[in-house]
C-alpha cells in the first residue's frame, strides 16, 4: 500500500515538473521570438540619413486603433506580445509601415496619444552625442532590437519627441509613397530657425528657407537631394504651443478620407485645404486623440528632382 502511494506521488511529481518545464519553455520561446520586423526587405547596405523611416503610435487601446487605421487605410496587423508589451506591426500592401504600441495611461493623468517619428541615422550613439551636445534630452536610451536595428528616443531643444534608428537591414530606396503610406513629416515649433539648426547638426540636413504667404517661417530639411521634412512656426492663434512632429499619410482624396475618419470615430483638427504642392491636406485625430495628417499627391505632377 505504502509502495503504491509512493509510486503515485512520484508520478505526480514527474507530471507536474514536466508541465512546469513545458510552460517555462513556451514562455522562453515566445520571448525569444519577439522581434520587431526588419525595415527593409531584402536587406541592403543603402542608407538615407535624415529620412523619416518609421512611425510608432502609442495608444491606450490597441484593438480600437487597429480597427480605426485598418478601416481607414486597409492596413493589416501582425501582433507581437511579450512580457508587458502589446505591439502590432501595421502592414500596407504587405509592407511594414509602422507600429502600434499599447500602453496604459496612469489613472488621473492626462496624456496625449501620439505618433513617434523615427529618423534614419548610421550611428545611433553618434547621433545621441550630437543631439545631447545641442540641447536634446534622452527619453529612451539607445537599444538594439533584433532584426530592426538600434534606436533611441529624444526630445529636441523645444521638447518635441523624435527617435533615431539605424536599421540593421538598411534603408528603403527613395520612392514616392503609395496611398496608405507615410509621405511627409512636419515639425511645428516656436523657433523654426533654432530647431532647423539643431536637426542640421544631428542629421547634416541641407536647409532651404521658403518664401511664405503667411508671414511665418517655413524651412525644408533635405538629404540626398530630397525634401524630408518641414519645420514651421506655430500658426497665429495657437493657444497650446507644444512643439511636436506631425506625420502625413498619402491618400487618394483628402476630403473623402476626412469623412471616413469622422465616421470611424476620429475628428478633424484642420479642415482640408490646398497646400504648397497643389494638393489637399488635412490634419485629423484618431479616436484616442493621436494627430496625423492626410495628404494628396498626384505622381504625374511630381517634378524631376533638380540636382
Amino acid at each position, binding site marked *: 500500500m505504502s509502495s503504491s502511494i509512493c509510486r503515485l506521488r512520484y508520478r505526480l511529481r514527474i507530471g507536474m515538473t514536466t508541465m512546469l518545464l513545458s510552460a517555462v519553455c513556451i514562455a522562453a520561446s515566445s520571448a*525569444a521570438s519577439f522581434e520587431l520586423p526588419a525595415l527593409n526587405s531584402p536587406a541592403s547596405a543603402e542608407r538615407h540619413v535624415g529620412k523619416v523611416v518609421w512611425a510608432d503610435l502609442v495608444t491606450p487601446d490597441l484593438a480600437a486603433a487597429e480597427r480605426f487605421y485598418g478601416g481607414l487605410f486597409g492596413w493589416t496587423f501582425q501582433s507581437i506580445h511579450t512580457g508587458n508589451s502589446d505591439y502590432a506591426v501595421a502592414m500596407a500592401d504587405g509592407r511594414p509601415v509602422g507600429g502600434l504600441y499599447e500602453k496604459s495611461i496612469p489613472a488621473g493623468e492626462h496624456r496625449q*496619444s501620439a505618433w513617434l517619428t523615427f529618423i534614419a541615422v548610421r550611428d545611433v550613439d553618434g547621433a545621441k552625442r550630437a543631439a545631447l551636445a545641442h540641447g536634446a534630452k534622452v527619453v529612451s536610451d539607445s537599444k538594439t532590437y533584433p532584426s530592426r536595428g538600434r*534606436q533611441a528616443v529624444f526630445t529636441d531643444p523645444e521638447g518635441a519627441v523624435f527617435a533615431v534608428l539605424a536599421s540593421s537591414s538598411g534603408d528603403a*530606396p527613395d520612392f514616392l509613397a503609395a496611398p496608405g503610406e507615410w509621405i511627409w513629416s512636419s515639425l511645428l515649433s516656436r523657433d523654426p530657425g533654432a530647431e532647423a539648426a539643431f536637426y*542640421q547638426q544631428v542629421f547634416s540636413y541641407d536647409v532651404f528657407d521658403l518664401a511664405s504667404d503667411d508671414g511665418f517661417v517655413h524651412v525644408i530639411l533635405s538629404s540626398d537631394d530630397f*525634401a524630408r521634412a518641414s519645420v514651421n512656426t506655430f500658426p*497665429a492663434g495657437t493657444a497650446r504651443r507644444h512643439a511636436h512632429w506631425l506625420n502625413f499619410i498619402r491618400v487618394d482624396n483628402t476630403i473623402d478620407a476626412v469623412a471616413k475618419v469622422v465616421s470611424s470615430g476620429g475628428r478633424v483638427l484642420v479642415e482640408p485645404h490646398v497646400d504648397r504642392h497643389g494638393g489637399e491636406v488635412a490634419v485629423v485625430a484618431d479616436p484616442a486623440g493621436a494627430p496625423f495628417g492626410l495628404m494628396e499627391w498626384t505622381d504625374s505632377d511630381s517634378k524631376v528632382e533638380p540636382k
Partner: protein
Amino acid sequence: MKVLRIGWLAPGLGALALTVLNGCAVTGVGVGGTVGYGYDAGYYEPWGYDYGGWGYGYRVGPGRGGDRRGGDPRGQHQSRSYRPAPESRPTPSIPHGSRGSRH
C-alpha cells in the same frame, strides 16, 4: 526515498534556471541594457494640441521642386542659426517614381 528526492530536485533546478533565463530575456537584464525584447519606445506627449490658426497661406507640405526661396526670419524675431543651402540650389521635392523604379 532519497532517489525520489534527487529525481525531483534535478528538474526543479532546471525549471528554476529556465525561469531566470526567461526573465532576463524579457527585460533585457544581463546584457548591458542594450538588447531587449520588451518595447520601451512608447511615449505619451503632454496633453493637448491646438491646430487653430491654420489659415490661408499656412503651408507645411513639400513643394514640387524649385519653390521660391526666401523667408529670412531675422525680421520676425526668429533665429537663423542654421546654414542655409546656397541660393543657387533650387528647393528639392519629395522622391518621385513608383516603388522598385530607381531614378
